[in-house]
């Protein structure tokens, strides 16, 4: 299976440096890959492998033939049939492992790296430790959900795997069942190794626009406000007041008016933003193969990076399963803190009934709240209502979930689809009626296209 996926960097890189494996090695690796594909289709094993050495396929074959020949000789009285029993018996006896069979067997797995981004290769090395002689290892890999096997290399001392996670999350890599035969191949034993977990971070969506609310906190930043301050953007001139610095004199207007005029500069403030994630459900679009939860966090992390790059503070609230929140803060580490706080949302149990109220500390005063939601669950309207009641400016970023599949000739399906569209449009109309802007993000395209209309004016919050 090495290279298993033509063109993949993980499989192509070793091929240039190492000599090409022989046909037997390729055959063994293809066999292991086929077994692994079957094991993956069957899911993670739920019963442990037998903890003892057991007879192999060859042993059972030789024993069966020898026993059948001996019994036939006894039953029929044909002594020559013992010749048919002698050959497999001798083959069995000569292949016996004797003292070379290991008594201590253990495995050790090493995963590198422990954290990665979506689509990056993760290398797992499983080494076998023993105190005897063993034959060629036969691995079977049962991968965890959301993972693919890029390369599988079997060596005399262990197995090298190259895995790839297609979407973010705290991923369980799966288990490896390693069949270890003795030197003669008569008996074998299966060692099960847990491959561990890896934190897969989402690749942030491309975004650099940072709309701001009307009211900004009194903190120096990079957003220009309407108030006079000590920024760098000139917003007007005014008469000179004694005590002001001469370098701020605006000479053209001073000459024109015959009186000293001073430049007026706008204040520059930092913004507070909060990303509100709707994790009530994860919808799978059969047309594009995308999942709404994947796109939700990719878009949210893209927006997070845009605000952090402008030295703003940003926090996070995730509603759906377990309520998760992160206080707004700045700096590069905040990006990773936010992602790590939601890596396990897929493992949350779905919450039924009403959602708990948002904690007060989750929403700083006048912080701009971005709600990333597929607008598929009515309960998110209650959460957005709570945000609005607190007076926070709010923007809803709709994550598309795709349309339900319908039969083109079925009138009932067509009617149901119309109702589905009408219900979603009603939710959008409800939000817009409350003065909440609703923008639609298209997966695969930059978030700036959705946020650009918000730059025309500053976003207002409701009066408390």
């Amino acid at each position: 299976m090495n290279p298993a996926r033509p063109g993949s960097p993980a499989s192509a890189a070793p091929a240039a440096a190492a000599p090409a494996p022989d046909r037997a090695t390729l055959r063994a690796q293809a066999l292991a890959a086929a077994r692994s594909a079957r094991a993956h289709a069957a899911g993670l094993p739920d019963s442990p492998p037998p903890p003892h050495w057991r007879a192999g396929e060859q042993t059972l074959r030789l024993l069966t033939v020898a026993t059948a020949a001996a019994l036939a000789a006894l039953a029929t009285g044909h002594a020559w049939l013992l010749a048919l029993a002698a050959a497999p018996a001798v083959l069995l006896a000569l292949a016996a492992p004797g003292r070379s069979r290991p008594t201590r067997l253990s495995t050790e797995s090493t995963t590198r790296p422990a954290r990665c981004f979506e689509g990056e290769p993760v290398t797992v090395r499983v080494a076998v430790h023993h105190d005897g002689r063993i034959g060629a290892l036969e691995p079977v890999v049962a991968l965890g959900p959301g993972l693919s096997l890029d390369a599988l290399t079997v060596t005399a001392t262990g197995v090298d795997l190259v895995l790839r996670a297609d979407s973010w999350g705290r991923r369980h890599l799966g288990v490896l069942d390693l069949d270890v035969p003795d030197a003669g191949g008569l008996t074998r034993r299966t060692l099960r190794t847990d491959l561990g977990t890896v934190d897969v971070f989402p690749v942030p969506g491309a975004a650099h626009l940072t709309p701001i609310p009307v009211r900004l906190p009194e903190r120096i930043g990079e957003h220009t406000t309407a108030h006079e301050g000590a920024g760098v953007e000139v917003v007007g001139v005014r008469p000179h007041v004694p005590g002001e610095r001469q370098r701020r004199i605006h000479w053209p207007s001073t000459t024109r008016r015959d009186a000293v005029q001073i430049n007026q500069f706008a204040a520059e403030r930092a913004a507070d933003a909060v990303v509100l994630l709707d994790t009530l459900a994860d919808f799978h679009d059969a047309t594009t193969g995308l999942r709404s939860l994947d796109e939700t966090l990719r878009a949210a992390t893209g927006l997070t990076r845009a605000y952090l790059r402008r030295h703003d503070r940003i926090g996070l609230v995730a509603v759906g399963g377990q309520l998760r929140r992160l206080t707004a803060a700045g700096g590069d580490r905040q990006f990773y803190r936010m992602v790590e706080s939601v890596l396990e949302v897929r493992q949350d149990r779905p919450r039924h009934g009403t959602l708990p109220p948002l904690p007060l500390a989750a929403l700083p005063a006048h912080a701009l709240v971005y709600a990333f939601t597929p607008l598929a669950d009515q309960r998110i309207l209650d959460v957005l209502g709570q945000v609005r009641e607190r007076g926070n400016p709010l923007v809803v970023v709709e994550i598309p979930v795709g349309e339900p599949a319908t039969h083109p000739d079925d009138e009932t399906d067509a009617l149901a689809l119309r109702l589905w569209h009408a219900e979603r449009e009603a939710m959008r109309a409800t939000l817009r009626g409350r003065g909440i802007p609703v923008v639609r993000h298209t997966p695969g395209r930059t978030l700036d296209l959705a946020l650009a209309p918000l730059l025309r004016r500053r976003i207002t919050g409701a009066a408390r």
Partner: protein
Amino acid sequence: MNEPTSRPTGRPTGRPGGRPTHGPAGGRAPKPPVRRTVAAPAPRPRTGPSTGWSGWTDRAAWAPRLESAALRGTGTALALAAAGTGEGTLTARFGPIGVAAVAVGALWAAVPAPEGAAAHPVTWPARLTATRTTLLPTAAVLFAALGEPPLWRALAVTVLLIGYLLLLDTLGPRRRTVRPFAAVAAAGAALLVLPVAFAPTAAGEWSRPLALLGLAAAACGVAAALRPDRTPDQDPDTPTGP
């Protein structure tokens, strides 16, 4: 679309407390959705001849077919030799139809199941498929026991059985290397028994119990050879994870 600034990290790769450092530098560039097949098996190597003269001269392309043909040929010859001709044999009981059925069955059963036997076959057809390379030599032994073959046919069945078992170990999915010494010893043991069995000696009532004792002694010898000499002193749950 890509952003001009670099991604917010500078930490070493894979450190337990660190951050991933292999992400794209400019954010997630817009791209069409990528669908990967989960745990896709490796693309199967070409087993047939490719187009042109290079395919006909490519040894690697023909090797699997030659191996399969060798197994099928040996297995079918073994089954047909065991079915035999003469009174009491399978051929005499079922005629040409029986011979044809034996040949067809041997052609199917002589080659191991593709991609190795299933790990845990559940249904009876799956079990039959998984163990067909065991069923073929066993059935050949039972076919041979039906009649009273002459020495030359017994010799042919013996040689073909040894050859098929050795070929299966060498060319089967696990590709074991059979030591020449083991092959010679197995053939020597069988060829040692064969002339003795056909020796013109009178068999009495004591012959069968004596043969049973001999078989029991041989079985004890094989069991003693297979018994592990060292006592495992480890916990069965020794396999460890990360």
